[in-house]
């Protein structure tokens, strides 16, 4: 036995096992995190059943069952298993004040899944869980009971269409008028600053503003009519304890009776919910609705960044690898560039704020936008500055990756091209660049994936929790580089940590997280695939 142990010890197998344990733990951590996000993020869309608990005191509770846990202090020697309790999402924030409630297991007398239990998605106050009592048309009861449920669908569709119309007028037409008024006002101010106080141009502009104002009034009246139509119908809801709640039809976004739904219907709802989150605007301080503006902002920022980062990164890499004289200096520069890839992102944020926003943006404002003073145009955070900051942060990644691509191009290519009489730039453009393209592409993808997930520098250079309008719209000049924008990563931070009701906001954060992680992981997998492909191809070529 002792010899066995001695041999075992000397063989080092034990240490190898400890190493193995470490790698397994690392893999588990990674997979665990991914699973956690998947489960929580994907679970959000599933229309869960509504459970009704009858409690010992005769009260009833209806809601989504979230989970069961052991009451922390209930475990003792006498009851080693402790007592359990359920966490229910009870919704009806306007009635109860809270979205979630703990119910002790021993308080529950009966538990059932009522078929008629309905989850109403509302524009305000979160979900309502209860029963549909009746539908009213201007204070007189139209239908009640099952008939009401049948009528509800078309009415909700109609209400949603009305809402869309209102949103369209508000954002589109009224937005355009406001924009024009603002532009005219700025032009008047600009002319005044130039001392042309009495020019005919100002007179015309002022007439324009008047005309726009009257247009605006007309639209507002139109909106009033539409809003009244939203209040034409109303529904009366009953919660589990029979308390009534009347809501105008315009408050309802959708209604489901999950307990009565088939699995297939649930899957359809699931897909629809997923789609809605991706395409809708946020509601209720970002805790409900969709994340479309955040996705849009992220994508647009990354696009601007890519446009900025590729030419400069590639130029620098070509210079370093192909044009500069190789020596201690280039080596030092290379180390410095490598270092920059390791500099914390927040430092770039600080730089971006000081240099881009205050120094460059402030100068642009004084030179080109004196009429907007004291409101900053470019002298405050915006999508352009955020993108440029990230471009600066990721340019080392592109340089390093492009250099790698260049160094992988066999020397014979250059010599062959020169031998055939090509000038240097011809060689570069026709021979080296195509061969190094995969390297450049890898660099770009890595840069994008780093930029997509980065939040800290954006917090200083132009991201906001709720942007009133997208950086691109139908108003001249269509792309607004000076606008602030929303971002998936910041959305996670903001909703998860700054919202007043964190518990209710959690699902939204998980969904945002899921989307962000999916984007980043996909980008990285693409980068790895491109790199592997490139290596194989070039290895094949060199032989």
């Amino acid at each position, binding site marked *: 036995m002792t010899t066995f142990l001695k041999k075992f010890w000397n063989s*080092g*197998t*034990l240490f*190898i096992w400890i*190493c*193995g344990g*470490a*790698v397994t*733990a*690392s893999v*588990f*951590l*990674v997979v665990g*995190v991914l699973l*956690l*996000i998947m489960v929580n993020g994907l679970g959000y869309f599933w229309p869960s059943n509504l459970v009704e608990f009858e409690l010992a005191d005769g009260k009833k509770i209806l809601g989504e069952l979230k989970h069961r846990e052991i009451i922390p202090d209930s475990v003792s020697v006498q009851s080693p298993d402790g007592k359990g309790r359920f966490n229910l999402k009870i919704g009806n924030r306007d009635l109860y004040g809270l979205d979630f409630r703990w119910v002790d297991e021993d308080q529950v007398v009966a538990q059932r899944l009522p078929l008629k239990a309905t989850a109403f998605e509302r524009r305000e106050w979160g979900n309502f869980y209860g029963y549909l009592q009746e539908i009213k048309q201007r204070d007189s009861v139209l239908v009640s009971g099952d008939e009401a449920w049948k009528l509800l669908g078309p009415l909700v569709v109609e209400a949603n269409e009305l809402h869309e119309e209102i949103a369209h007028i508000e954002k589109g037409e009224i937005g355009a008028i406001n924009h024009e008024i603002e532009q005219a006002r700025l032009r008047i101010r600009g002319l005044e600053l130039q001392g042309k106080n009495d020019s005919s141009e100002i007179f015309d502009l002022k007439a324009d503003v008047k005309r726009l104002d009257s247009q605006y009034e007309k639209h507002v009246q139109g909106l009033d009519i539409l809003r009244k139509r939203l209040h034409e119908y109303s529904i009366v809801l009953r919660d589990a304890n029979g308390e009534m709640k009347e809501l105008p039809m315009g408050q309802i976004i959708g209604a489901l009776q999950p307990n009565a739904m088939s699995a297939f219907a649930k899957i359809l709802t699931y897909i629809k919910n997923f789609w809605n989150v991706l395409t809708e605007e946020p509601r209720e301080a970002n805790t409900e609705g969709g994340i479309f503006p955040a996705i849009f902002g992220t994508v647009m920022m990354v696009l601007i960044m890519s446009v900025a980062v590729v030419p*400069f990164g590639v*130029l*620098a*890499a070509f*210079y370093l690898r*192909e*044009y*500069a*004289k190789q020596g201690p200096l280039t080596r030092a520069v290379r*180390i410095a560039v490598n*270092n*920059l890839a*390791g*500099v*914390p992102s*927040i*430092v770039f*944020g*600080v*730089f971006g704020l000081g*240099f881009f926003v205050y120094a460059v943006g402030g100068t642009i404002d004084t030179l080109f936008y004196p009429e907007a003073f004291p409101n900053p145009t470019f002298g405050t955070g915006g999508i352009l500055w955020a993108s440029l900051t990230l471009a600066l942060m990721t340019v080392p990644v592109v*340089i390093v990756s492009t250099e790698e691509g260049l160094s992988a191009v066999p*020397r014979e290519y*250059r*010599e062959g091209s*020169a031998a*055939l*009489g090509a*000038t240097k730039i011809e*060689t570069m453009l026709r021979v080296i660049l195509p061969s190094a393209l995969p390297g450049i592409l890898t660099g770009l993808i890595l840069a994008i994936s780093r930029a997509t*997930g*980065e*939040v*800290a520098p954006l*917090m200083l250079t132009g991201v906001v929790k709720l942007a009133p309008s997208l950086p691109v719209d139908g108003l001249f000049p269509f792309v607004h580089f000076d606008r602030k924008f929303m971002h998936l990563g910041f959305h996670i931070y903001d909703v*998860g*940590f700054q919202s007043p009701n964190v518990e209710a906001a*959690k699902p939204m954060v998980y969904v945002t*997280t899921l989307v*962000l*992680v999916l984007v*980043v992981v996909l980008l*990285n997998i693409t980068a*790895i695939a491109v790199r592997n492909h490139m290596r194989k191809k070039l290895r094949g070529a060199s032989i």
Partner: protein
Amino acid sequence: MNIFQSNTGSEIPLAKASLSARVGARTIRRWTDKVATGIVTLGGLATILSILGIFVYLFIEVVPLFYSASVTQEASVSVKVEGSAKGLPNQIGVGLDEYMEVGYVIYRGSISLFHLDSGKSIPIDSSLKLDHESIISVGRSGAQGNVYGLGTADGRVIPLTIDFKVSFLDGVRSIHPELSTGSPLEISVESEPVRYLAYRELSDGGSVSAAVNDKGEVQLLKMIEEEGGLFSSEAKQILTRGQLPMEASTPPSAMLLDGMGETLVVGSEKGELLYWDITNVESPRLMGVYQAAPFSQGTVTAMSYLIGDRSFVVGTSEGKVSVWMPFVDPDKGGDSRLSEVRTFSQHEGAITSISPSQRDKGFLTADDTGSVFLHHSTSGQTLAQIPGAGRPVQALMFSPKGDGVIFADGSGKIMTYRIENEHPETTIASIFKPVLYEGYDQPNHIWQSSSGSDDFEPKFGLWPLIFGTLKGTFYAMLLATPLALLGAIYTAMFMHPDLRSVVKPVVEIMEAFPTVVLGFLAGLWLAPLLEKIFPAVVGMFLIVPVALVCMCLFWQIVPAWIRRGSGSTTEFLAFGVVLLSSLWLCISFNTHIESWLFQGNYKDWLSSTFGLAYDQRNAMVIAFAMGMAVIPTIYSISEDSISNVPRHLIAGSLALGATPWQTLTKLVIVSASPGLFSALMIGLGRVVGETMIVLMATGNTPVMDMNLFNGFRTLSANIAVEMPEAPEGGTLFRLLFLAGMILFAFTSVVNTIAEVIRQRLRAKYSQY
């Protein structure tokens, strides 16, 4: 590498024949090439320089923090004094408005208002009942506002307020000074002249005065304003008088009242400070006597509270300037003890006047040689000096915005200077060394950049943040280093290639994982979970190694067809089984572990055994989350460097009979050690600057202790928290740049070391 070097600019020899046939095309091509070379060189250099320029830019933003103040003369005007029959009277008070346009002088016997640019005097409203002739002394009430008590020759105190009303007409600013007086207060019943006066208006409308008469007695007067009755709108004044029981041997030479009117500091001709409690003016109580000037060398000549009324400046006849603070002394039954905390540059003559800034803890001192010094209390530095003209400065005031000074030196001229003094509170020492702040009893490292009140003393000690950064780094590396390095060793040396091609990318995916996601999970999922299952986690750290050893021993007797050699998938599965089962075991026995190890409640146990408090968002959560963020980096680089150890060396070692483990420790690790080191360095660099995880999963409290179970604030999180509120160009703004620069410098050094080592390594292996 560069085969074009020799022949750029001339035609390429091989292609000579064909090129000479098409001269035009050749020239164009040659020019294109030259232009392109220029563009690439320029663009490349510009890109490289601009990214290297970041450091330069940060530096440029930081440097002004350490600039001294600069002083430039603005104006020197002669002021005609109306009704001065007895020659040029003494100037006992000066002041000016916040735009430095209108000034005033209080003389013995008169008051004069004038424009600072022209010296043209402004008539004083004649309805003002001011008995000019009898004014012989003046006491300024605190730093804020132009509020005075004027002492008269017949023992009265006249409250005087000078307001500057600003109005704009067609965009042109004009300033209208308005004088108003309160009803005279009779401080001396016997109508003795008020030689020195200390005066303070209280926030409730009352006032406190202390006057020295010709006999050297200090008389006190407290005025309380009471609401009139139901039918009278006039407030009623209630006067209380008292006298300090002073010995005649210590004649008072300066006096100082605090803003609450509760204490009085009397400076004596012997250089003493007598600290009186005058809460009850009828029976003042001496709380202590302190020596401000070396014994019987000089008298106390001037005193002034700094903004906030906590610390005060004392000037002596020897030109010594010092700041004193009250400290709560438990031995004295709740009374405060005065102590000298800082001394400043010595003046050449006796201090005649001291004026505190209304913006910060800065102050001006003037002496009888006419020079004026600018000091700052918190940083303890003397920032600027205005050389004297030889005549004593009689009155002095810091401008309301802290950007100028006005003083009178008895020559009949009033001088104004502009002061450029952006960042008086920062020196290298005040940032990196402990500083004695107001309200603390010993020097401390404190970061507290802002507060609600105006008279707040900003505390800009960066150490708590640097400490927090290092604390987070330490714990994260403590977790990540063993996991990542051991994992890399196993993956590179023992794992089957097929398995490796799956495992490595999976871990590497994590490298690109947005840290905001990890921060969110750490803050909202892990932190509450960890609080619940802390005993289980401790159990994991104990049980997993034991379980691994047991499983390993058991594995030796498992038939070989199951084992299928070291590094196989089955072995990997065995690890998984060990980990998952111990995890399950620990979590399901969480409460049992808690009762076995921690007597039933781990929080109580921690606080009773080690005196540690457990916060939900603590360094342990950070260790897990930042560890997660950095494991892939370290793992990936060290795996590469181990894989790059030449295979023939390993084969040779194994062929000579060494076990895999011996080969690993004696050969592989040694050869790969520079690579492993550089992996750790790069990981370190990443952890140091990590922002979102720390921001979201710690409490962000800038405390300094190594407790694993409480939070901290790092340099990076601090930037993210405070930068949005920092006004551009302000001290906080530049300090946050300094924080950024420190991060930049630290990560640069660490990464450079890593990179140099890696290049050496590459050179070393290229010879095999």
